């Protein structure tokens, strides 16, 4: 039963919440304070995935600001896309976007997703996420820190 004591000893480890960002993005209709997201790796090196995992971990805890990653685009209000869009992931990305009910929001995370990053004009690359689908929020950085990702998410959830 040592784990009960451990809970008390460790205490709250979550980073204190900063003030909500000034800048706001119009959230999809019907979304107020809660945002369900489906994540698509369009060809990432997995650096952004690690940071997204960090953002939703118990330390940064993005869920307290209303954002949540879900398993199916059918349950989602929007997409988080990472990485350059490779030829193999081009059609699946379009299919996934089509599967998210409208109105929806698309968040591109990382330099690759925003402008191609170091992989731009590679032989297997179609382009950045914005070249393929309309993007609402961009999070620059290679990779962006969890704090940056959370700030971007809060511009949509408004919390």
């Amino acid at each position, binding site marked *: 039963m040592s784990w009960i004591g451990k809970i008390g000893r460790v205490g709250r480890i979550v980073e204190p919440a900063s003030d909500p960002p000034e800048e706001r993005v119009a959230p999809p209709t019907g979304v107020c304070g809660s945002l369900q997201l489906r994540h*698509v790796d369009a060809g990432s090196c997995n650096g952004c995935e690690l940071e997204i995992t960090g953002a939703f971990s118990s330390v940064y805890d993005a869920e307290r600001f209303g954002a949540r990653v879900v398993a*199916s*685009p*059918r349950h989602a209000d929007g997409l988080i896309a990472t990485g350059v869009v490779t030829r193999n992931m081009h*059609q*699946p*990305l379009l*299919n*996934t976007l*089509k*599967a998210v*009910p*409208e109105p929806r929001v698309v968040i591109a995370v990382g330099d690759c997703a925003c402008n191609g990053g170091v992989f731009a004009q590679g032989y297997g690359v179609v382009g950045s996420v914005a070249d393929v689908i309309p993007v609402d929020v961009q999070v620059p950085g290679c990779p962006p820190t969890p704090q940056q990702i959370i700030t971007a998410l809060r511009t949509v959830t408004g919390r």
Partner: protein
Amino acid sequence: MTTALDDSPTVPAPDQGLTAARQARGQAVLSGGVTAALGVVGVAFGLSAVFGQSWHLRIGWLLPLVGVVFDLGPLGGFFVAATGGVSIAVGIYAVGYAQREHWAAFTLVMLPLFVAAMLLVPAAGSVTTFLLAWELMAGASLVLVLSEHRREAVRSAGVFYAVMTQLGFVAILLALVVLSAAGGGDAFATISAHSGAVSAGTRTAVFLLTLMGFGSKAGLLPLHAWLPRAHPEAPSPVSALMSAAMVNMGIYGLIRIDQQILGPGPNWWGLTLMVFGALSAVFGVLQASVATDLKRLLAYSTTENMGLITLALGAAALLSSYGAHQVAAMAMTAALLLILSHAAFKTLAFLAAGSVLASTGLRDLDKLGGLARRMPGTTVMFGIAALGASGLPLGAGFVGEWLLLQSLIHSPHNNNTLLALMMPLSVGAVALTTGLGIAAMVKAFGVGFLARPRSAAAEAAAEAPVSMLAGMTLGAAACAVFAVAPVALSPVLRQVLAALPTVGGNEAGPALGGYLRLPGIPGSMSPGLIAAALVIAVLVALGLGRWGWRRRPVAAAAALWACGADSLSSKMQYTATSFAEPLQRVFDNVLQPETDVEVTHFAESQYLVEKVTYRTTLADPVERRLYTPVVRAVTTWAQWVRRAHPGSVHLYLAYGALGLLVVLVISR
């Protein structure tokens, strides 16, 4: 599908073909009609016997010395009526099935004969007549199993079935001969009157032999091995008759000989029945839940249900021997209800499986699917059967299983260690059986009938003809009555219980009114009200939904979500194998699957995998452990005996002379 018409000219002249078709239809209608008519006669005679009109018939000239004696009482009438009901549905179904599958004339003749033999077994009033009818039934069913004898699998199943059914017959023959010698007569009535004088040793011998003989017919562990072989290979109407009616004869034999004529036995009889019943139920359902062949699954489900019925019989006998007559009557009622409901849903399930087989040629669940669109009628029928087999509310098997559980839970143990130990264990066995049964039936229905077709044959499926659907509708109607209004069976069950004084027949059984009330026990349930509540809930939900729809925005049409791929394929679906995989893993020690993984690497590099072959075979462990050594020993022995007849005429003449000499010396 191999048909009996393989060697007929392939392109007959048009008018010739028409005449042949008309003739085939005439034959099918005649065969199916006679079968159904026999069924009607069975139901009529059976019900009249149940309600006190006892039928007695003696045909002296038919068998030398003893004659043939028929004596139909309430218990026999119950089984005759159940068999008759199954035969009506099967007869109507067979009209369409026989035409579609081009049955040979021989099969068409044997079908009504088989039904007649089955109707005669419970009507038999003497040992000789019983054995005659029993052997007629076994022989007719064997011929019917072999009706597609051109396939190797059918021949192998036929040999297996023939050997097991004849060994069972030998056990019954010995038991009944010993019994009639000890009981001082050939007629069951005579033996019953003198049963008190039968010595304890004889009783034990008769009980053990009948348990073997009737147990093998009922498909109890470990004598069940013929069921999963013969039932899948027999034509589906025959499977339905065998699985829904013929196996009941094993149960009839156990009740008639061991409980009605010999009973009440010592309490270890009931205990033995309970143990074998529980083992059969759990083992049968476990095998059913991992089976991928639809008809094999249903055959194992028969073992499961016969196990439950035997468990109920054993519980009734055990409780009665400890004086708990009220609960014993409840357990007996559960057994009788389970017999009826099993007959109804298993007929329906095998007939629906037969429609699928006739339409697609497939029994393998991993290749079926998508039938709900293509065969809606058959799908609904199989759904009703699967609901009945899973023992859930609104299913045919629910009331019987509920009663069985109630009688096991509420049995008074009176500080008796045996009862206090046996009853909770049985509750566990029944609960496990029901739970796994649901998994097996969800698999059979969900994988076999829903989603997308997994093969071209399943894609080309078409609905069954009207007569087949009509036969199935009859079975479905019976399922619905047993599920919602068991009150309809109440008078029948009361009469049959009264004919079984050894299992508490004098006590009032549970009252099967609109409310099921259990005497002396705070338990009641109303299947009719449950059904009504469900219907009302569905209607209310539909009404609310319709009310809400008006406020909704226009629905958008979108392609199905295929995990990012362009379209769904049938390979993305659950298969029967993958559905059962967790169960197979959990029960690894019991099922003992043989798994074989073979990884092939590219010649260029051992780090690149060219292909992975995964093969898993699920052989029946009981069969492998018990039957293989026996078969091997018998084969070795037969090789020895073979040396004695090498084909030399001189040697055979010497044998004859030697034999004669021995006879002369003995009878000197």
